[in-house]
Structure formats: C-alpha cells, structure tokens
C-alpha cells in the first residue's frame, strides 16, 4: 500500500511534466506581458506606442537608411499574436489578413510579415536577421536579444501596454 502511495507521489510530478509536454498551450500564463525583441546591435532602445504601431502596420519600413525592418509575426492561435492584434492593430484575424493583402496590393510593401511558429523560432530568426523585430512572452525572452522599451517601459512595469 505504501509502495503504491509512494509511487503515486513520485509519479504525480511526472504526470504534471507529461501534461505540460502534451498541453503546452495550457501552460502559457494568461496576462503575461509581451516583449518586443530585436538584435542587441539594433540602434533603437525605446519606441513610443505610436511608433510601434507604425512599425507593425508596415508604415515605417526602415530602422535606418540601410537597415530594413523585417517583421516576424506568430502564426494564428498564439496568445502573443492575439495580444498584438488586439492592442496594436486593433483588428480581428480576418481584418489583419485583409490589411496585409491590401498593403501589398497597394504597392506599399513588397510582402507581408514573416510567420513564425514558436517563440524559439522567433528568437532564432531575430538573432539571425539584422533588422528583424518580433514579440514573445516576456518570461520567455532568450538571452542574447534586446527587449525594446515601449513608452519608456519594460515588460512587467506598471502601465506597460502589451499584455
């Protein structure tokens, strides 16, 4: 009996770990701030929220004359994408897709954002591509990337706008 009870205790942690593997979405904390990440060598540390919106709308396409902005956006279904659509774009999923089709059709952009499928993938590409910008859960920002301040605030600080 004690063996079985002990086994349950020992296995409980394993079950939790397995469930975390099987249901990764369920482990994402709701309400975590979303961090805007870039390469450390990008010459920008702070953006106003309006500047961030222009960046994500594709209205601002260059960091500097020789450095084009490459926008990396999570695929549909990610909480990070939902937050960005709600807070920055103020668009539904359908409106977002239509927006970028129209943007390219108007010859205002050569292409839409690049799609990434995980925070790890976003981080990997941001680190590899000069000018790339993406967004990840604030508690999952990998080492080696720079978090951009929004209105002078970092994720976790009061009044930070993306959560």
């Amino acid at each position, binding site marked *: *009996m004690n063996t*079985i*009870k002990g*086994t*349950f205790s020992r*296995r*409980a942690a*394993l*079950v939790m770990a*397995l*469930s975390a*593997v*099987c249901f990764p979405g369920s482990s994402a904390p709701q309400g975590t701030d979303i961090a805007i990440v870039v390469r450390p060598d990008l010459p920008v540390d702070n953006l106003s929220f*309006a*500047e961030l*919106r*222009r960046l994500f709308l594709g*209205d*601002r*396409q*260059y960091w*500097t*004359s020789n450095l*084009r902005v490459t926008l*990396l*956006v999570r*695929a*549909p279904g990610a909480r990070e994408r939902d937050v960005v659509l709600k807070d920055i774009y*103020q668009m*539904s*999923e*359908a*409106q977002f*897709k*239509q927006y*970028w*089709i*129209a943007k*390219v*059709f*108007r*010859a205002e952009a*050569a*292409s*839409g*954002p*690049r*799609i*990434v*499928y*995980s925070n*790890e*993938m976003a981080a*990997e*590409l941001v680190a*590899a*591509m000069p000018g790339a910008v993406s967004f990840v859960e604030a508690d999952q920002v990998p080492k080696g990337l720079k978090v951009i301040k929004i209105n002078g605030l970092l994720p976790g600080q009061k009044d930070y706008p993306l959560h």
Partner: protein
Amino acid sequence: MKCIVPVIALFAMLAPGASAQTTDPATKELIEKLLSRIDSLEKRVAELEKGTVAATAAATPAPVKAAQPSAAQAVHMSHEAAPVPQAATPETAPPVYPVLKIEGFGDLDFSATNLHGTAGGFGAQTLLAPHSGFEEGQFTLHFSSALSPKVTVFGETTLTARSDAGTGTPPAPGFNAEVERIIVRYDLNDYFKLSFGRYHTPINYWNTAFHHGQWLQTTISRPEMTQFGGSFIPVHFVGTLVEGETPAGGLNLNYDFGLGNGRGQVLSRGGDFSDINNNRAWLTNLFIKPDALYGLQLGGSVYHDSLNPLNAPAAREWIQSGHIVWQKETPEFIAEFANVSHQPVSGGPTSNSQAFYVQTAYRLPWFQKLWKPYYRFELIHVPRSDAIFRSVVPDFHASTAGIRYDITTFAAFKFEYRHYVRRDGPGIFGFFGQTSFTF
C-alpha cells in the same frame, strides 16, 4: 498526442476519489499496467534524448525542433498565413533575389436595371447594361517582386470582359488584356522613395486604396468619379513619382510628387505611348494619418495637365481634390470631393465640374461579424459650358444601398440597389450582385 491517454488516466487516478487506496485487484492491475507503460515511455524518452544528442553532435547548426517548421522555413504571410516553405536555406544566408509573389483577384457580377439603351458616360465597370444578366468582371493578377532590399517591382494586369473586345464585324464580346500598373521603385528610406511606371493616379483615395481588387472594396463598384473607363479624373498616370512619409509630430505626413504623361486623346485613357503634347502633367498629393486618431486619413491633391481631346478644344486642366477616411469598419467612412477646371487654350470662360461621394458602412456585431450593410451617395455636376466633359461625363446624383457578406476571409457576396437621377436622361434603378474574391 499518444501520451494524452495515459496522462488522462493518471489524472483520473490522482483525483481524490481515485487516489483512495483500494485493494480492488482490478484497480491494482490497472495501476501496475500504467506504471509499466510509464516506465516504457521513460525508456523511450531516454532513447530519443540520446538520439537527439547524437544528431546534434553530427549537425553543425543549432538543433531544429521536429514538430515545428524550422526557422529556415519561416515564410512570408500567405493568404491563410499557412506555412509555405521557402527553400531550406540556412537562417543567416542572404535572401535570394528576385523574390516574386503573385496574388489574384476576381469577381463575377449580376445586374438588372430598367435601362433601355446606352448609359452614356458611365464607366463599363458601373454595370449599367440594357439587358439583365451575368457578367464576368475582371480577372486580376498582382505581382510584387523584390529585386534587392531596396528595389521592388509591382505589376497589376487584368483581363476584362467587354462587349466589343472580340474581332470581326460586328464587334463580339471578349476580353481585353491590360497592364494596369507596372512600377519599379527604389527606396532610399521611409522619407524618400523614387519610382517610375504606370500608376493609378494618386490624386484621390479610392483610386489608390482598392485598385482592381473588387474584393477589397465594400461595394460592388467604384464611385463614378473614379470609375475605370470613366473620364472625370485621370485614373492612370505614366511617369515618375517621388513619395515618402515623415512622422511630423505624430501627424504622419505622406506625400507624392509626380511628373508624367497626361491624359490621352480619349480622356479615359492615360498617355501610355508618349504624351499627346509637350506639356507634362504633374501632381502633388499630401495626406496625414494622425497617431492620436488611429484609423483617420485626411488629405488633398492638386493635378495639372494640358488636354488635346479628340472632340473638344484644347484646354488646361486643373484638379483639386480632398478626402477624409475612417478606415475601420465600425463604422467605415469614406468621403471624397474633386473639382475639375477646364480653361480653353483659345480663350473663353473657365468651367468647373464637381464630384463627390460619401460612403458609410458598419460591420454588424452579430452573426460572426460577417455582414456589413452600406450606403453611398454620389454626385457629379458638369456645367453645360464644359466642352471637355459634357459629352463624356454624366451629370447625375445616385444612391446605393447594399450589404456585403463575407463568406470566407477571402471571398464575399455583395447585393445592392442603386438609383440614379440623371440631368439629361430618365432615371435608372437596378439590382446588382457580385461575388468577389482573392486567391
């Protein structure tokens, strides 16, 4: 996902009721089985980890997660934001140019009006036909290709159904092929972009917002003042443009300065093959998109050209226009105004023709937000003294009421009723339907 089953079973057992220690042999047997299953899974995980380590050691780049597309497969957003793998190049490899992308638009239309005879002056795409029936709209292909990080080519071609596009006598129905836009643009930065090509003239909002993508616009057809095949404003412009955007203290000031060939002898046509005189047309277009009112666009334009029309005296043309747009859908609001002045070169009074439209729509919050009713009022006034316009531009006012239903994110049905009151002819009313889509 195979691991879900044992996990769920274990969850059930760890629940208070199930965790009560029992001597039931069946339960005991089940527990033993599950423990054995966990052991085998642990063993399997260990084997996999071993394999991963070995694979990592063998491969130089960072390990790539098997269950997800790799970073190298990151793709530009397709219509469904679906993964369309690019060539599996290393993440840090420079992009390969040119990068061509193609999008398509199409529409099929139905119209039934009380019109008996021709609707003089209205553009073909207004769908005012003397017989009811289905019409093939436009089949549009849009190309965009980055030639380098700073040089991009855009193209738009259409195949348009016409009653007189076929060969022979009498003219037979068929399709007209047209290069609507072809633009090569060099971006210095956000403030300065230089391009050459054939454009939709950037002197009003609609002309550069929706182009030939019927699906992009809420209504079935364009306002008549900017209609394809219409003559009120020059829809096309061949030449060069300088454009850019500057923050301007949160106003986000955008500008276009253009120089190019003016209208052709047929006013609805641009100067595709040189100009018809030695006076280039020029334009200035300014608009703002203030940060404080996200969704608002406000702007105005000036355009000048010298005209040598086929059936009217030569004249200097000035166009002044303005627009105010609320680009969201709850509500959507678009209003534009244009004044066209014609000064005969040989002297005589200047005539001024005006046009405006006001369109509003609202995406309903019910039924999955798929329905969007709309209304548009439009007016074109051409004084009889305007020798340039009086035979090719209709004088009328009209109301359009309709509803748009988005059957998918990329296709829509539209139904509308229109009523035209014409100065020089009987009124026209009709019902119109359209399915339009992008692909």
